[in-house]
């Protein structure tokens, strides 16, 4: 018997499930730089999402509508509670707030063009309202943010709705940081700050501190705008039942609820991935709050955070939302992370689909940058056309599903149209586990 034969077999190398390669890379990155990772985009970790739900199309017990023949309505009206001029949208898909500064001017223009062509609204962001954005958006929601960068009453009165941003799904409770390299002369002027310095966006409003104050703040905004336009309140998804209830109590016309898959221009990775609730988990508690207060459908609910397809739209609406908002998906529709820029993404040490250093201002697609040369890569007309197509496709997809479930309006989708593939999704969405009539938290059968 040789030594070779008596050698004890080695076990197969096993990667740690705790110290994974991405985690180890992050440890090495932190050790080398001494600072946490800052990035854009939204949560990348897998959490229960709309993909964990399925629709129950009609068979015998339900009667479907004929695709391409029978009408399935998609219009939605937001702000019917107090506003003299509610916002009427052709489709229940809106563009989420993204700032000029974080995004290039052509990108903002393209968002306006695309949204208008699809019959829906777009939204400003930190940094105020630009003439191009107002000019190209048939319906524009003006965000009233803690930073109040560029805030003035003239722009306030040009808006079709006002969205008081209390929180954001990617960073509920956190502020923002637009790094100095993205601060062009124009961005600096709009924010009343010197060029080239980091611009901190506060995490809380400077002149109110709680729901009672918020009620008075809303009164002020309504008095300034003659009670014409709806007041939205946007919250990050963390305590959706109570935040929704208090937003209603404060006088909101519309509650915008942004789950943890929502995007951001730049914040700490640890924040993006570890603070907040999955979008799926936010909807039913918020709807419950509206129902408990007797205002479901009177105070509209807009859900955002990782909405990608018509199926996502339909599922959010089936769970009780009145509309959805898309942010990251809209940027992808415009052309961000497009494979045609792969070689340039690789030069930045990343790859198509993974590029998230939006704060560095070097976006090869010219969308999340203020670099004049890169910005030229965005043709606002063509990018707007792409966005319009994307919004139309999502709407068609949602209509197809709704018809199959027997509904002649997307609003008629309901939780009974859904089942869940996983226990987690069943619990969060409060719909039965597939093949059963039970979900966690529901007593009996």
């Amino acid at each position, binding site marked *: 018997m040789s030594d070779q034969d008596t050698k004890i077999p080695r076990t197969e190398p096993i990667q740690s499930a705790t110290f994974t390669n991405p985690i180890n890379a992050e440890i090495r990155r932190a050790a080398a730089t001494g600072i946490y990772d800052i990035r854009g985009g939204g949560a990348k970790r897998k959490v229960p999402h709309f993909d964990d739900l399925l629709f129950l199309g009609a068979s015998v017990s339900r009667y479907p509508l004929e695709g391409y023949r029978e009408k399935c309505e998609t219009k939605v009206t937001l702000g019917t509670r107090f506003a003299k001029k509610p916002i009427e949208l052709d489709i229940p898909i809106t563009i989420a707030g993204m700032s000029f500064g974080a995004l290039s001017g052509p990108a903002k223009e393209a968002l306006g063009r695309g949204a208008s062509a699809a019959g829906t609204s777009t939204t400003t962001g930190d940094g105020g309202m630009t003439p191009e954005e107002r000019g190209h958006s048939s319906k524009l929601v003006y965000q009233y943010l803690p*930073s109040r960068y560029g805030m003035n009453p003239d722009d306030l009165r040009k808006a079709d709705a006002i969205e008081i941003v209390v929180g954001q799904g990617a960073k509920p409770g956190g502020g923002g940081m637009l790094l100095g390299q993205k601060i062009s002369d124009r961005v600096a002027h709009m924010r009343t*700050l010197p060029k080239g310095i980091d611009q901190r966006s506060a995490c809380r409003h400077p*002149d109110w501190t709680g729901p009672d104050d918020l009620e008075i703040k809303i009164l002020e905004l309504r008095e300034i705008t003659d009670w014409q336009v709806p007041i939205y309140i946007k919250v990050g998804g963390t305590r959706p039942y109570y935040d929704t209830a208090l937003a209603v109590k404060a006088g909101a016309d519309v509650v915008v609820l942004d789950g943890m898959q929502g995007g951001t221009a730049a914040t700490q990775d640890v924040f993006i991935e570890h603070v907040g609730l999955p979008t799926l988990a936010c909807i039913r508690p918020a709807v419950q709050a509206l129902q408990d207060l007797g205002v479901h459908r009177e105070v509209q609910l807009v859900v955002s955070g990782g909405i990608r397809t018509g199926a996502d739209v339909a599922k959010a609406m089936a769970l009780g939302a009145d509309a959805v908002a898309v942010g990251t998906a809209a940027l992808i529709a415009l052309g961000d992370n497009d494979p045609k820029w792969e070689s340039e993404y690789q030069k930045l040490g990343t790859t198509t689909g993974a590029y998230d250093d939006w704060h560095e201002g070097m976006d090869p697609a010219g969308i999340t940058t203020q670099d004049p040369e890169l910005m030229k890569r965005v043709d606002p007309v063509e990018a707007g056309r792409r966005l319009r197509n994307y919004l139309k496709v999502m709407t068609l997809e949602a209509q197809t599903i709704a018809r199959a479930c027997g509904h002649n309006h997307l609003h008629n989708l309901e939780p009974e149209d859904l089942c869940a593939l996983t226990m987690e999704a069943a619990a969060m969405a409060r719909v039965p586990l597939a093949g059963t009539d039970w979900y966690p938290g529901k007593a009996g059968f």
Partner: protein
Amino acid sequence: MQTYDLEANGLRGLNSTLQEQNGGTNKTAWEIVNAKGSHAIAVGLNSPIEVTVKGSTGYYCAGMNQQATVRVEGSVGPGVAENMMSGTVIVEGDASQYAGATGHGGLLVIKGNASSRCGISMKGIDIVVHGNIGHMCAFMAQAGNLVVLGDAGDALGDSCYEARFFVRGSVKSLGADCIEKEMRPEHIAILKDLLARAGADAKPEEFKRYGSARQLYNFDVDNAQAY
């Protein structure tokens, strides 16, 4: 002088009436009676009218003012002249929290004291406080001038940018990245003008100037303890 009875005719009527006055109006002087601490009095004005509020107000009096001169013959609640763009707001009494918050322009004069967070996130407004101010005033202040004839509370100018602070009395403490700065002739001139416009009986030479050390303008991990 036009008189508006707020109790009898309501807030909506008041603000819509005042907002309707344009540059050609001959109704340039207004007196509001029975204010009784109401919120959002005289907000969103945009013409060079003169409004006098007889009595004290609640939140956000003269919010987002443009061009108008609003005088409050009493004290004001939180957020007086918030996000003011231009014009003048004069408070004969004291002011609660967030006076002049996020103001982009114009002049806010407080004859009494101001509470905490006065001038928070100010972006070009000039604020003159005849009395004292509370803690965390001018937090994240970006531009404009805050003049205090009395004393300042804790953490003055924390995380400020390019705003200037002139304090005649004591400062309990300075916030992160806020330092005392040299009082140069141009600052004396700015202060002299502001004191005169605010009707303040004080000499510019009696004040000390504070502002940003500009050490935290760009993030540096070695400054982490300062954030």
